[in-house]
Every structure is written in structure tokens, then in C-alpha cells.
């Protein structure tokens, strides 16, 4: 596939991610911060997001598996996940976190468990989609082009 085709594919794929609500304008702002001084800025920030999210999702699963659930602790983890998902523009993860926090405040165990499953699902979706997006960018670079911002 030539550079022009790859660029078109990247453009269409990115547009779809925005259209389907996976990403919001915060992701565009991150892309705008990337320049020759920080060529891998977006990948680095998103990798940090992946690391933090996986740690938080594990901690949430452990916290919700206790006999006496510490809802303040659960809420603090969800708050952090909401913040980091918002900071990279992972809109759907952020939205589930809002519902998750409401369940925490209501001390609703069933609601929290349901939200944990939803947030895990949304996280795996956005992770997969961002990896595809970064892979397309790599292919463009390998073909001698530069990814459009």
C-alpha cells in the first residue's frame, strides 16, 4: 500500500474513532503537542495511560472482591481512571467512570461490579483501536511519509 492510501486509511480510521465516541478533542490536543522535539509524545502518553489503567483495573477488581468493600478506596481508583482517560481523550472510558463513581457513592455493589465489567470492556476496545491507529502511523513512516495531524 502506498503512502497516500495509508494516509487516507489513517484519516478514515481516526474520523471513525471520533464519530463513534471513542475519542474526543483532547486526543487532538495531544496530537498538536507532538513535534520534532517530542516525536513520540502521543504514544508515550497513551502508553502511560495503558500502564496506569491496567494497574487501576486490577486494584478495582481486588477492592470489589473484598467481604467489606471500602467504597472510598474504590471511588479514589475510579476518580484516577476518570482523570487519566479524560487526559488522553478516551471519552467512552471516562463516561463509564462517571457512572461507576455514582454507584460507589450509592454503595451499590452490583452497580460497581457492572461498571467494572463495562470499563474493562471499553478500555480493551480503546486500547485495541489506539494500537491499530499507531500501527498505521508506523506504516506511513516506514513507507517514507509523515502521519497527518
Amino acid at each position, binding site marked *: 500500500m502506498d503512502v497516500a492510501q495509508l494516509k487516507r486509511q489513517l484519516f478514515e480510521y481516526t474520523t471513525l474513532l471520533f464519530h463513534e465516541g471513542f475519542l474526543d478533542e483532547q486526543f487532538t490536543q495531544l496530537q498538536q*503537542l507532538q513535534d520534532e522535539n517530542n516525536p513520540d*509524545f502521543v504514544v508515550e502518553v497513551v502508553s502511560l495511560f495503558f500502564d496506569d489503567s491496567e494497574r487501576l483495573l486490577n486494584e478495582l477488581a481486588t477492592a470489589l472482591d473484598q467481604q467489606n468493600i471500602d467504597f472510598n478506596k474504590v471511588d479514589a481508583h475510579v*476518580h484516577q481512571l*476518570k*482523570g*487519566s482517560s*479524560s*487526559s*488522553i481523550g478516551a471519552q467512552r472510558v471516562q463516561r463509564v467512570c462517571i457512572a461507576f463513581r455514582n454507584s460507589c457513592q450509592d454503595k451499590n455493589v452490583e452497580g460497581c461490579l457492572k461498571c467494572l465489567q463495562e470499563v474493562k470492556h471499553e478500555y480493551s476496545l480503546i486500547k485495541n483501536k489506539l494500537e491499530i491507529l499507531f500501527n498505521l502511523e508506523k506504516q506511513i513512516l516506514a513507507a517514507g511519509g509523515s502521519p497527518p495531524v
Partner: protein
Amino acid sequence: MMPGETMSKQVAGAASPDPRSAGSGKAMMGNGAGASWAAVPEKKKLSVLIVDDDSTIRTIHTILVNRVGVEVEPKVAENGQVAVDLFRTGESFDLVLMDWEMPVMNGIEATRELRKMGVGAMIVGVTSHSMDTEKETFMAAGLDDCYGKPLSIKILKNILEKMKIDD
């Protein structure tokens, strides 16, 4: 209030303890004992402390601070206690970007403590709390301003501009 929107001290009320009000009422540099902005040479390196427990936010804000067009030297702290300890050990900063919810010591407690210590640096709250009443609570701890997180370049430039204008 939408993310990124500001709540200035005037909006939140003047109940906050502000050691600078005893002086000229203008933004002072460093830990309160330093010179004002006007006395600082144009090319002075600004020192910025980024206080946030979220490493993603710390990275984004560090890059942002490095992009604002003035020479800046950012440093990070993962909670309010680390920030307070930095000032206690004699470090000074011109601008502190303070998160609210953090382990060990949150942004409200850290801001109160810093103001109690006489720190006159500009402290700007950066929070995912979006309700006006929540931001008012944070402002009352002694903030100069409060914004939704993460900051944008435009907002950061406005903050730095205010530091000049306030002088």
C-alpha cells in the same frame, strides 16, 4: 462549569487566606520572599511545580509547560505532602499547578499549608471536579485560579499572562 473553564478568585469570593494581600496585592515570585515579576529580567527561567498523582497528567502538563514560549523549568510532585516538603526544604517556585484529589495530602490541605507557611507563589488548582461549588471550596484554600484538567496551551498562556498583569 465545563472542563478548562476558570474560576477566578473574584468569582469564588475573597475568603481565601492570601499572604500576598498584606503586600501590594500583586503576584510575587518565588516563595514570597522573592522579587516581583517586574523586577525579573525578561528571560528569567520560570520555575513551575506540577503536583498530581496521575503520571499521565504530569507528563502532559510537563510538555505543556515546556511549550508556552517562555523559558520554564518544571518539577513534579506526586502528592501534596511532597510539594509542601519541597518548599520546606527551601525550594521555591513561581507557579504551582495543584491537583485536588491525591493520596497522603490532597490539594486543598497542601494549598492551605503552603499559604500558612507564607508561600506567595501563584497556585493554580487543576481538577476534574466540575461543579462550581466544588471549585469554590478549592479556591477558598488559597488558590489564585482554578481550571478543569488537563490544561490546554491556551489556558497555560493565560495563567502566565495573568502573572505578568497582576504584577
